[in-house]
């Protein structure tokens, strides 16, 4: 496995009595784009802030580029880019002034040409003040500021939240552009699964502060699957199958959502359960994510049980 550039060990954060993050153990290897997934309130922003040393952990630790997050030196910080949720930038500054301000943190590695090119491409001017920009334009400035120092590790907290499709695509292009330079790594959180699928080769999934998956995107795509099993008479009442996430039942059908269950195991189970036949249902990443993070005994939202 490639060198690990971002790692957490038992990373835990309590707000009051409740854990926002509960013993998170994850490892991000160099050279990948890692999509950081989780529902609202799952703990993604907390995890990112802990990784960057902006919050102190209740227990456990995080490290970036081999350096503990609570003790990041300026020399290490200089190799890391961070884009905050909502692209908070100093409102009173002009784009040009903001560039000078940021540049000071990255001595000797600021790509002024790239920054100028991007600002021009976005049809902005360095004379414009941040407070006069739209949300989308502010995000574009934020993207240019993130890429100009050519960071070794770029961490972005939901960078495309609320942005239109064209600006979202620019963020994806920016990530691909960075990753094609040798040894660069990106971690970004997002709720747009189609975007994640496009650019990520690894994903981390957390749910209610707990790590649920840390694997290649392909592994997740092949592991989470749905199978419809047909029975001649009635479907069995009890289902014992390791890897079963949840199921739906109708008279002569069972719809099983499985994780990490191979074709042969499904076939064995179906034969033992007396099933007639079964079909795998193809799922896209969004469906897989919804199924994977759904509570075990969930009801559908708009479904009223008949008494």
């Amino acid at each position, binding site marked *: 496995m490639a060198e690990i550039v971002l790692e957490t060990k038992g990373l835990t954060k309590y707000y009051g009595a409740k854990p926002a993050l509960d013993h998170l153990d994850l490892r991000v290897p160099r050279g990948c784009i890692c999509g950081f997934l989780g529902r609202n309130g799952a703990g993604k922003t907390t995890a990112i802030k802990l990784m960057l040393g902006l919050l102190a952990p209740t227990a456990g630790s995080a490290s970036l580029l081999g350096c503990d997050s609570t003790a990041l030196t300026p020399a290490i910080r200089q190799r890391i880019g961070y884009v905050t949720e909502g692209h908070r930038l100093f409102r009173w500054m002009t784009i040009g002034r903001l560039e000078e301000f940021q540049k000071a943190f990255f001595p000797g590695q600021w790509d002024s040409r790239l920054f100028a090119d991007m600002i021009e491409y976005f049809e902005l001017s360095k004379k414009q003040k941040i407070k006069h920009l739209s949300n989308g334009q502010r995000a574009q400035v934020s993207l240019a500021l993130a890429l100009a120092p050519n960071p070794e590790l770029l961490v972005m907290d939901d960078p495309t939240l609320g942005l239109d499709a064209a600006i979202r695509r620019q963020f994806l292009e920016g990530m691909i552009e960075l990753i094609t330079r040798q040894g660069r790594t990106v971690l970004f959180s997002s709720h747009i699964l189609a975007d994640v699928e496009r650019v990520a080769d690894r994903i981390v999934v957390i749910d209610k502060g707990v790590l649920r998956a840390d694997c290649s995107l*392909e592994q997740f795509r092949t592991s989470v699957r749905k199978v419809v099993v047909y029975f001649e008479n009635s479907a069995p009442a009890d289902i014992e199958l390791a890897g079963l996430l949840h199921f739906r039942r109708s008279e002569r059908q069972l719809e099983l959502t499985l994780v990490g269950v191979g074709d042969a195991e499904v076939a064995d189970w179906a034969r033992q359960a007396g099933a007639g036949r079964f079909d795998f249902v193809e799922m896209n990443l969004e469906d897989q994510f919804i199924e994977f993070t759904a509570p075990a005994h969930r009801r559908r939202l708009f479904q009223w049980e008949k008494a």
Partner: protein
Amino acid sequence: MALWMQISSGSETPIYQQLVEQISGAIARGELRTGDKLPAVRALAAELVINPNTVARAYTLLEQSGLVTTKTGSGTFVSDPALRQVDAAQINTLAERMDTLISRAVNLGLDRSALMALFEKRLEKFAGTLDKGKAENG
């Protein structure tokens, strides 16, 4: 780039598989011919805005199926059909896939002649490549 590709994200089909299908389709239809060079991994990744590892994975699969060969340092090229190794397992997989399509056709109510006519019509798309093969063999 002579090759025109369209990636759809959010699809049930993984992106590397979409690439494999589109490139092997282009080879079968003769849009890509023996010796043609595929775009460099990074260039194609940047153009399609997808992860370079996804492109590399697709190229590896195409190479494993014998459709392309990679020459270290110079790139990935469409291989010579005469040199492609086809094994029984690949033929078997193909036959199973055909079964899926035939059962759909049967369920739609098509009879043997209608199905054969449809098959012939679809083959026209691949005429350039298919007939070229016949000429060389014969």
